[in-house]
């Protein structure tokens, strides 16, 4: 299974402060372990929300709202995408992450995989199989 691990924004991340060399090194070691264990699929940090926008949908109208956005704790500052065997394993890994402190929360969400969307895909797939058979018969 895959898990999206979201690091929430903080005052510092929203201020656009860059991590120190030591912090980069510490996080780098953790990331290395994730790679070595075959867990890491992706890792990205985000610019503060002041550089982001939101696009609001209302009927046919699209409104672009410029950042920054207020609710700091609900904002995402960076994310990992992990390949693990269970949520428990993901939890075990995140517990080992360095640097996070001061009530900071990291949110872990399992990725909805294709085969879990099975019900929605059923008619389409059935049709495809039928089409294929049709094609074979005509050839």
């Amino acid at each position, binding site marked *: 299974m895959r898990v999206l691990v979201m690091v929430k924004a903080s005052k510092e991340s929203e201020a656009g402060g860059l991590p120190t060399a030591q912090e980069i090194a510490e996080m780098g070691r953790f990331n290395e372990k994730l790679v070595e*264990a*075959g*867990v890491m699929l992706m890792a990205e940090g985000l610019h503060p929300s002041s550089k982001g926008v939101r696009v609001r949908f209302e009927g046919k109208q699209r409104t672009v709202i410029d950042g920054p956005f207020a609710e700091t704790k609900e904002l995402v500052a960076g994310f990992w995408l992990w390949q693990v*065997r269970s949520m*428990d394993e993901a*939890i075990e890994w995140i517990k080992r992450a360095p640097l996070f402190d001061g009530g900071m929360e990291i949110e872990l969400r399992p990725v909805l995989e*294709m085969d879990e969307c099975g019900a929605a895909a059923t008619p389409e797939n059935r049709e495809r199989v039928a089409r294929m058979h049709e094609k*074979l*018969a005509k050839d």
Partner: protein
Amino acid sequence: MTTADTHRTIEAVWKIEAPRLIAGLARMLRDVGQAEDLAQEALVVALERWPVDGVPDNPGAWLMTTARRRAIDLIRHHRMRDDKQAALDYELQPDAMTHAPDHADALDDDIGDDLLRLIFTACHPVLTREMQVALTLRMLGGLTTPEIARAFLVPEPTIAQRIVRAKRVLAEKQVPFEVPRGEELAPRLASVLEVIYLIFNEGYTATSGDDWARPALCEEALRLGRVLAGLAPREPEVHGLVALMEIQASRLHARIAADGAPILLLDQDRSRWDRLLIRRGLAALERAEQLGGADGNYALQAAIAACHVRALHAEDTDWKRIAALYARLAEVAPSPIVELNRAVAVSMAEGPEAGLRLVDALQKERALAQYHLLPSVRGDLLCKLGRREEARAEFERAAAMTGNARESEFLRQRAEACVER
């Protein structure tokens, strides 16, 4: 935390730590079987203590300390035994106790080498392929015996026995805990890659049972491949294998219909292919090629798979290049199965007649006598040429050969479709 929660935590910790734990212990004891036993014992202690004392802050280090203490007892015991040879053996490996670090973290520098030794030992040629697979999943994947048994649809005692026998063989043959060097490295690495790819394929195309694929095994093999690529980054074929598995796995969800029936490559909805895995696969292929491994067995197979994923629509597929890559693969790793695949590529590039000529040349190939894809491919080509009755007979022959219920059903449907108007 309830006891059930703690047990789930322990299970997760175990899956993460087991390979490092066993590898570290094997270096101390020079006996992989004993190392695995001691690691299991440490797990049992954790299962007793953690629900009572709480989960330690650094569960990995806790397990290592617990197991290492037992290992040191064992070494002392060996030393005290009235057996001069054992004492001598021990003296020859002084790092076991005197150099054993105090903190598990201090092991980190060497752990990579130990893990690599562990992989090579689990896939050692003195073991049968089945033993290699079971031992690899158990020691490198942290899988339990029931988990392995479920994945391979065999009874638990069978797997348990394979693991016990494998450990015994390793001990009896005194297989050294080391990474092979020089001329020995290439064939030994090939053996490791084969084991990983076999696990992947067992998941990708289940050879028996009703399920078309068991994705968990694919994920496990991919994980092992990625780990190996980190441990042996200069080996092009490791990256070639990872590339091949990443690209094949990208199609995992698109190749099975909601009702469980297989969907052929050219009929798959390409929007359902996993772009992230494709990107990772192409990157791994590039690394293999940069390291001078473009002509490797796995790299060539990955390059072929890459041709498919680079085409946004099935009709855009570069079949000429695929046919050329198969021709190269047939030189590097000649096999009737490669030849059969080349025939399919040639039929797509030059037309069904050209393909059929190659397939017909394979009819007497003994290695393919029981291979259902030979009549299946032949049936497909005959069908395209309008030779429907012959095609139906081939599909029926193929259906009778496969052990996979889903695939058999699919082939029977194709047999019927041949003659329907």
